[in-house]
């Protein structure tokens, strides 16, 4: 079921630019582009949370850091995507590695709190950077340039680039999870002490996973900044971390593609609810609670199959 659902979602996503061109509704191109970008962010979180059991409540930090890397470089006159994007991904990997050294010493509730704390730290850092917009954020006047290879100003090209990157991240996730590395990670989630006892330095594996996850989320941040042509502290707000968490859980943590379904469901739902009433959050909140209380295993769980896996305590 999961494969079928994923396949249909991906085909639908691939068809979006054609449909928006026919019906002349460029807004939806933006909306679904954002869905895919958040899907990448949710994928990255699922890597550490779904498989490693590390509930990070600070992934918005990477989203923001990746975005600011693009924004700050653009402001300094460096428009080349070949410089911007690797720097965005690299700085996020570095930040994840360095904070990972600290946060991975803790577990459980402490882990949730300390990841949140690091994200808040970045939030306040960028809020106080008056030179780069401070509170108001930073407008990005030109999207990343790839010296004629691809033009990001063209809606459909940008969309398909995001689509390809999403496929890439899906592929990487799937490969990682089924590799020896992924097995160790899942083993550490189930019983870390036992994994250590049989000789795996679980800390290093978790640190590697956390770094990869941060890098992947940084890519999403760079894409988001390009799409919005803006980056501001709101991207790093802690509620953003919460939203990414919601997407992962909504989609279901058992499978690789859950986050994609979750991101689509969350963003489309909030969009349509917001269309219905400006008080959309008053419906979204209780809906979320109901999902947590009664639809364990998320959308994948509802589709059947992976329920048992996602239910592990």
């Amino acid at each position: 079921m999961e494969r079928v659902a994923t396949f249909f979602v991906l085909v639908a996503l691939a068809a979006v630019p054609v449909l928006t061109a026919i019906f002349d509704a460029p807004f939806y191109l933006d909306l679904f582009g954002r869905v895919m970008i958040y899907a990448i962010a949710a994928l990255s979180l699922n890597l550490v949370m779904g498989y490693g059991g590390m509930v990070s409540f600070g992934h918005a930090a990477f989203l923001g850091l990746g975005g600011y890397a693009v924004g700050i470089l653009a402001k300094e006159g460096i428009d080349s995507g070949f410089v911007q994007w690797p720097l965005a991904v690299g700085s996020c990997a570095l930040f994840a590695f360095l904070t990972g050294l600290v946060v991975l010493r803790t577990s459980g509730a402490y882990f949730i709190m300390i990841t949140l704390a690091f994200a808040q730290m970045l939030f306040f850092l960028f809020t106080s950077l008056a030179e780069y917009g401070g509170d108001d954020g930073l407008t990005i006047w030109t999207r990343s340039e790839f010296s004629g290879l691809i033009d990001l100003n063209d809606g459909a090209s940008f969309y398909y680039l995001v689509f390809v990157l999403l496929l890439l991240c899906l592929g990487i996730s799937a490969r990682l999870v089924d590799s020896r590395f992924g097995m160790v990670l899942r083993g550490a989630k189930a019983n870390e002490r036992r994994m250590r006892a049989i000789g795996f330095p679980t800390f290093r594996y978790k640190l590697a996973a956390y770094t990869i996850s941060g890098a992947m989320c940084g890519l999403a941040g760079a894409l988001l900044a390009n799409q919005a042509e803006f980056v501001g502290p709101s991207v790093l707000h802690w509620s953003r971390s919460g939203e990414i968490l919601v997407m992962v859980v909504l989609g279901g943590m058992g499978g690789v593609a859950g986050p994609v379904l979750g991101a689509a469901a969350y963003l489309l739902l909030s969009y349509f609810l917001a269309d219905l009433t400006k008080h959309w959050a008053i419906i979204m909140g209780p809906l979320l609670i109901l999902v947590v209380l009664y639809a364990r295993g998320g959308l994948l769980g509802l589709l059947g199959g992976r329920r048992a896996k996602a239910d592990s305590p």
Partner: protein
Amino acid sequence: MTALLLIEQTLNGLQLGVMLFLMAAGLTLVFGIMNMINLAHGSLYMVGAYCAALFLEWTGSFVLAALLALPATLLVGLVVEIVVLRTLYERDHLDQVLATFGLILFFNEAVHLVGGAEALYLDLPTFLKGQVEIIPGSPYPLYRLVVIAVGLAVALGLYLLVTRTRTGMLIRAGASNRAMLSALGVNVRLLFTAVFGLGAMLAGLGGVMAGPTVSVQSGMGENVLILAFVVIVIGGIGSIRGAFVAALLIGLIDTMGRAFMADIMGLVMSHAAAQTAGPTVASMLIYLLMAGVLFFRPQGLFPPRGR
């Protein structure tokens, strides 16, 4: 002049500290006994402030409004506990974070519906508006002193409740071994509802007292909530004593950092660089402190015994 400023900032830090303690006390009790992360605790703080603002409009008396706001927040807290949180105790932290995140979305929008989209303001009555000269020549707002006094009184009361009464004994027992307490015939569920109500009321009190110093608006509880999380993590989750020490520590460090960091950094670098970097470092200071504490003591400064 510097000494005056120092005293003033110490008092400000103390004020922030006791406010944080009011939030952190509820959080840490709820976590200590039921192992539950409650993000919606900040919403209760907001509900307290909103209730006070609405009751003030209705009654015209600040004291009456404050006194009415407390049971109102208690009531909201109990309803939330019974309707939503009760089912979450047996779930993992992730489910708790998500469901209470949903509660935040709900409450932030609900206060918009009840109190309107505009921020509300709580006007102080005249008898609280004055200034006091703590040391001759430096007036300090009376209300801030009242906040400190109330906060310290509540902390003392809570300390006596937890260490000297039978209820307190049950609370401590619940924190160290819930299953055993339940096996001894204590209705842990009821105990927890009571503790949650107490925590809700303390958060509400924090909101009421903060009301006159900030604007009462949707989302006002979130920054305080995150600071309170930092407090309970540094203090050791589940420890009231740790929450108290850490709350004052955070309050003082944050306030002092904001006031003096630029000058302190000016000693080692150029004035201009210190003026830009100072506020940045100051705003990150407590998170750095938290990271440092967790690095050396992953369980916090006062980890609760018996677990």
